[in-house]
């Protein structure tokens, strides 16, 4: 147990070095560190919690397989998120090629999972539900940008490094997404 605790205090680069040195169990520390954020991001993007879980598991397995290509001068989180973004995009592409219920339908799982927070009042729960529905109605690229910016709190250069999209394009996507969200949620916010 003390070994796990000491691993949890190490930096990402040192943990990666230990994994590459043969300590496979050290990888659990990285999973534990980024699992929640990854699931949250994937759920916002895919609109389906189960699919997000699959995407995150796929992401961590790919990260482990290609861990040797990780360069220590890079942030591990940004490197991991590049894989995650690609996995989510792949799943969105697969979904667009097969008949599926719309995101707005599956996003209710996300709403259900969050609506039961005990300290939420009814208005906030309602607003949370409306926000989830509005997010699901955004185009995938705009949803990706707004989630990375607001939910993950990333700067535009960080988002650009992860998504491979230019900063100005990302700003435009966030701007348009915010316009859309404000339009959709006007009644809820000011009501």
């Amino acid at each position: 147990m003390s070994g796990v605790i000491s691993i949890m205090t190490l930096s990402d680069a040192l943990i990666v070095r230990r994994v590459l040195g043969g300590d496979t169990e050290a990888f659990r520390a990285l999973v534990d560190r980024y699992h929640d954020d990854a699931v949250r991001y994937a759920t916002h993007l895919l609109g389906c919690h189960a699919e997000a879980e699959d995407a995150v598991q796929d992401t961590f397995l790919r990260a482990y397989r290609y861990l040797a290509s990780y360069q220590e001068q890079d942030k591990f989180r940004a490197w991991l998120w590049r894989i995650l973004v690609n996995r989510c995009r792949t799943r969105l592409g697969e979904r667009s090629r097969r008949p599926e219920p719309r995101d707005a339908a599956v996003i209710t799982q996300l709403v259900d999972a969050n609506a039961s927070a005990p300290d939420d009042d009814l208005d906030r729960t309602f607003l949370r539900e409306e926000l989830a529905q509005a997010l699901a109605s955004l185009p995938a690229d705009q949803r990706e940008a707004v989630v990375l910016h607001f939910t993950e709190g990333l700067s535009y250069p960080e988002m650009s490094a992860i998504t491979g999209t230019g900063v100005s394009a990302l700003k435009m996507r966030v701007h348009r997404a915010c316009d859309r969200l404000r339009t959709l949620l006007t009644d809820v916010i000011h009501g």
Partner: protein
Amino acid sequence: MADTPTPLLPAELQDLLRQLRPVDAAQRVRSMDAIMAAVHVMPAPRRWSLPPSITRWRRRGVLAPAGALAVGLLLTLWTGVTSLTDVLSRSSSAVLAKAEIIGDTVIPRLVPVADETRLVTAGGVRRALHDTLYDTMRIVRFALRAPEATRVMLVESASAALPGAQGTRFAVARDLASGLWEMRTVVSRHAVADAFAFVVDDAQRVPVRTPLSEPAFGPREQALADTSL
């Protein structure tokens, strides 16, 4: 005081976006266990999974800089030689002339008739028999491939010309579909190979190399003998 950018979303919505954490604790443990179970059966990642003694090409699928330079040099030399050969042998701007016999036709032709062949009748001397012959001419298609030419003439020598048209120069038109300079004309069946030539832009003379001298119905003497009764 520095200007702060106008927030794109109301603070309440930004707050909600940050707080949305759809992670169930039990599900989280199950998910992490599944990831680690899969990780344990996977081959361990290594920085150098292949020994450095293996060539870079086999290890990474790319050439080392020196190897890439050598391969590039060889390819340049090879393509340079082949393209030079191509230019020398059959350049796209090369001028090629061709003539082909399409068929034969007959054209009336005045033939001098010897006195002994004239027929004398009771009424006196009349016109000679067969003093007008129908000579066989050939319809020939001349074609020239000269993509950069702006003006093409077909020049014929006296041996090939129609009677009264010796040394004529014909302006050749360009066929827009094929890009060839083409014209059809009738020539004597006794025309020889070098009887025609194209003159490109009033400067370059391109002889027509296709032989035209094969007789259509036999040698000239035989034809005359047949008709000079």
